[in-house]
């Protein structure tokens, strides 16, 4: 059980949302000739989310003045690699924003942003799959982060999608949220049958209001809303981010380490 780290929650959520919006932007442009309605605003938003997230992360560091050291162990540390990937991602986003200011963003740039964004999330997934936390020392963090990118990303992207594409965005959101719901309900139950620490993590999740708030506010209510209107209402992105906030708090706070169980049966 860990203490709440607000900066980490914001960092992961906002950067994941940024990647989500960026990937959707790329997908929409691949699939259709017409670009987004407001490409500048869209890339501006992506950049804004990214900057806000990265800024937030500084508050997590005990010594932000030494932040440059974070790149000194790219050889073995996933956190170093993650930050490196986000630096590349950030550079590409900046390029995209710059070119959006001048006209349509080129296809290769969009593809690169999308690919690098997903790679960054993969690195992030590895960073938060630490050896000491057996419940998530696996693919799950990456999956969780991709799902957040899909739901939060599509919710935010709804601001920028042309009317004709609102259906597509709503579809992406609902599919993401539905898969999330299934996975988030299933994973803690799977954990219950794991070893002592993993099972305790599962119990911690299932008995935590944080987790259920996330399921409700981040997934169920939005799903119902979208199912009714078949599009993403303007208030939904805020609600989704709010819900995701609880989910992420649960992720960081309820994850038990093997070290917390020493002296007991594993």
């Amino acid at each position, binding site marked *: 059980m860990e203490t709440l780290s607000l900066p980490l929650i914001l960092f992961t959520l906002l950067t994941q949302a940024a990647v989500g919006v960026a990937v959707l932007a790329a997908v929409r442009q691949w699939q259709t000739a017409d670009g987004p309605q407001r490409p500048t605003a869209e890339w501006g938003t992506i950049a804004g989310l990214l900057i806000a997230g990265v800024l937030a992360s500084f508050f997590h560091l005990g010594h932000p003045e030494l932040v440059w050291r974070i790149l000194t162990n790219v050889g073995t540390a996933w956190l170093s690699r993650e930050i490196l990937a986000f630096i590349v991602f950030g550079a590409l986003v900046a390029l995209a924003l710059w070119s959006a200011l001048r006209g349509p963003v080129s296809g290769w740039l969009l593809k690169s942003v999308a690919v690098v964004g997903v790679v960054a999330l993969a690195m992030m997934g590895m960073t938060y799959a630490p*050896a000491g936390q057996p419940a998530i020392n696996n693919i799950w963090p990456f999956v969780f982060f991709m799902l957040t990118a899909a739901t939060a990303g599509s919710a935010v992207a709804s601001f920028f999608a042309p009317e004709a594409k609102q259906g597509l965005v709503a579809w992406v959101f609902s599919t993401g949220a539905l898969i999330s719901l299934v996975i988030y309900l299933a994973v803690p139950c799977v954990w219950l049958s794991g070893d002592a620490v993993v099972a305790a993590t599962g119990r911690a999740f299932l008995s935590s209001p944080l987790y259920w708030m996330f399921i409700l506010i981040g997934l169920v209510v939005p799903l119902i809303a979208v199912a009714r209107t078949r599009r993403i209402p303007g208030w939904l992105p805020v609600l989704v981010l709010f819900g995701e906030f609880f989910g992420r708090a649960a992720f960081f706070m309820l994850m038990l380490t093997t070290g917390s169980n020493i*002296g007991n049966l594993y």
Partner: protein
Amino acid sequence: MSKRYAFHVNMALCIGCDTCAMACKNQYHQEAGIVWRKVYPVSEAIYPHRDRAWMSLACNHCDNPPCLEGCPASAYTKRDDGVVVHHPDLCIGCQQCLHTCPFGVPQYNPHTKKAEKCSLCWERLDAGLQPACVQGCPTGALSLVDLNTFDDPSAIQFPPGFPHRPEVGPSTRFTLPEQPKIVRRES
């Protein structure tokens, strides 16, 4: 050949007296709230009497230390003699090692805003002394051994109650506690 230092925790001798934990605080003056060596009670599922068998644990100075691998700031190094050293001047306080260590060893110090952990008293070792905790243990339950020469047949690496992480290679070795014959009151 260089040494491979490790702690041998003889639970058959250990009385859970916390001397080792305090000997460490005595040497390094950890702030209230921070303890580098912890004496963990062994649960009744493993030893049938509560708070009567103990595991005195600090850093395990692992063969493949995940703390070191995962530290983005390269604040950990491993010496030739096996000691995994944390360098406070290099630490950026990201707390990643709190999660990567499977044994819950590094602790975050809110005063220094850095992680910290047992150093195996390498400064003392270099001065030819025993680690403070080992020197302090009044029963001989805690000792410093060289795994290159250590051959106590009773010693095991993964006793019940200790995370089974062979890939990490924790260096600590354990001897299991024993049980007396118990005659309980009839009336």
